[in-house]
């Protein structure tokens, strides 16, 4: 199966099971270290993840809040580099589709074609680049299309309708709907009007709509699903757990199961 097909199948399988939405946990590649990071990824798959979003550590992550920024800094200090993270991705991709998340400069420095080849070689299915908006995306979009990889665009509550329509038409894999105006991180409540944000995104695209940023509890995940999301992305809460305590894999595993439970068949 191609990357595009694997992503479509993952959302389809969640739907076929009668679950409320697909679960897509995020992990920072190489945090807290490479070995535990690999175990965390495999535990995500065992715990009910439908897809895994795999972050590549970056020095200046503009879209990320302090927890993910700090996790990336820890990984960089330990010498984690892109090939290391792609090897993690290769192992996780044996179980669930992997979507790599990194920043534009990490792609540009290698060259778009080489970067896309490396993704393909590691068995990744898609790519999220939070600082590559529509205007800057055409070349990367082509490189991904040629390899049947999904370049997943982000849309925000601030994105106007006309722009949303263009982004929705170009979206591959799924559309990443940012639930709030802000960086990644835990929030106590869900932003009002989430259903409207999801409905707006769904109306402009044929691909599934996933919601992320600020989802840190199982009830929030359930609320996102109730708002109509086809997929729910959980990041900071899990990255925080990965950095705490003596048994990070076990605590991350327990959390993922709780999130999966909140999205399971009602009743």
């Amino acid at each position, binding site marked *: 199966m191609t990357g595009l097909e694997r992503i479509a199948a993952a959302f389809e399988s969640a739907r076929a099971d009668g679950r409320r939405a697909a679960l897509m946990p995020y992990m920072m590649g190489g945090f807290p270290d490479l070995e535990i990071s690999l175990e965390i990824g495999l535990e995500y798959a065992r715990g009910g993840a439908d897809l895994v979003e795999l972050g590549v550590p970056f020095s200046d992550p*503009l879209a990320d*809040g302090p927890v993910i920024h700090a996790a990336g800094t820890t990984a960089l200090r330990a010498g984690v580099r892109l090939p290391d993270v792609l090897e993690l991705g290769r192992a996780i991709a044996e179980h669930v589709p992997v979507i790599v998340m990194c*920043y534009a400069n*990490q792609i540009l*420095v290698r060259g778009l074609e080489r970067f896309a080849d490396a993704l393909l070689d590691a068995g990744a299915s898609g790519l999220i680049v939070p*600082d590559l908006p529509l*205007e800057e995306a055409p070349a990367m979009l082509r490189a991904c299309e040629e390899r049947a990889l999904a370049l997943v665009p982000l849309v925000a509550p*601030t994105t106007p309708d006309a722009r949303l329509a263009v982004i929705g038409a170009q979206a591959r894999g799924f559309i990443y709907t940012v639930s709030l*105006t*802000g960086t990644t991180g835990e929030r106590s409540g869900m932003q009002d009007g989430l259903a409207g944000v999801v409905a707006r995104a769904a109306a402009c695209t044929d691909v599934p709509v996933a919601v992320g940023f600020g989802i840190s509890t199982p009830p929030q995940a359930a609320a996102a699903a109730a708002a109509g999301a086809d997929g729910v992305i959980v990041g900071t809460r899990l990255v925080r757990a990965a950095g705490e305590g003596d048994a990070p894999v076990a605590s991350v595993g327990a959390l993922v199961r709780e999130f999966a439970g909140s999205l399971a068949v009602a009743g």
Partner: protein
Amino acid sequence: MSTIEHRFGPYGGQYVPETLMPALAELEAAWLSARDDPAFGAELNGLLRDFVGRPSPLYQAQRLSEAAGHPIYFKREDLNHTGAHKINNAIGQALLAKRMGKRRIIAETGAGQHGVATATACALLDLECAVYMGTEDMRRQKPNVERMGLLGASVEPVEAGARTLKEAVSAAIRDWVTNVETSHYVIGSCVGPAPYPALVRELQRVIGDEARAQILKQAGRLPERVIACVGGGSNSIGVFVPFVDDREVQLVGVEAAGDGIETGRHGAPLTAGGLPGVLHGAYSAIMQDEDGQILEAHSISAGLDYPGTGPEHAWLRDSGRARYVAITDREALDAFATCARLEGIIPALESSHAIAWAMANGPSQLDLVCLSGRGDKDLAEALDHLGR
């Protein structure tokens, strides 16, 4: 309808989170409408004249010229209210924010001059102001931290990374992503996503427009060289741009060589070369490793301690219209002391880089040096290094 550049050759662009894209479009539309509005121009020019003190003088530095062996004129941006060129941009953008109905201003600062200028503009125009500043820079530039507080701004300490300008810009952008509907980000240099590099240049070109007319009047000719320091590059782009079509005038940007380019501890992405890349929303000359991780810059001058530079400078370099050189911490300190002793002017450590290069690189029939700011803020740091 008038337009504004998004790209300078291959450089520039808008590499930012989607959340900000509508705000950039709104800013661009607001600026295009404001710059064609005579009432806006009259208000801005009135403030530049009566509040900032423009035009700033062009002054022949007689004793320094004798020591250098060729004539050197200073464009005296140090005599502006708040002590540097930064106020030209801060006042313009604060007025624009008000026009857009945004009551909260975000800024970053390295040396503190842009932070002070923005805090000043916000006090004047009754706007809320948050200034992000690395804690290492807060230590180096303590008087400016105190000034910002007195002016009613909240200074937000940034602890990440090397705790200097790069991290302060990142923190300011993150604040903007979160509060974009109520806040305007007054970026301090000709960096960042479009339309900022061109917008800041248009607000800073008053330096070069005045200087060109003044030198023609005072010296009866154009300068052989126009010389200015380059961190992000706003005073240099402002003084360069009106001379770009005067092909006989050389444009020289002076970056921070820090401990020396060969040590890697510098702030000279244009001089050092290497692969271009994306930092803070723009594709330009940056300091990065082979994986695209951004490197920490180093300079004794907090305002030049930045691993990126404005995209228009990268294009002026590649197109051959300007050239870029670098001056070490030590050379800048010597020029700082020399200028104080010979001219009775204490220049900013940033501007001291431009003075150092002009003095050491004759002959020239006439040098125009942008004295971008005054050095009061640098006394503690400079005296410490000069061993006094």
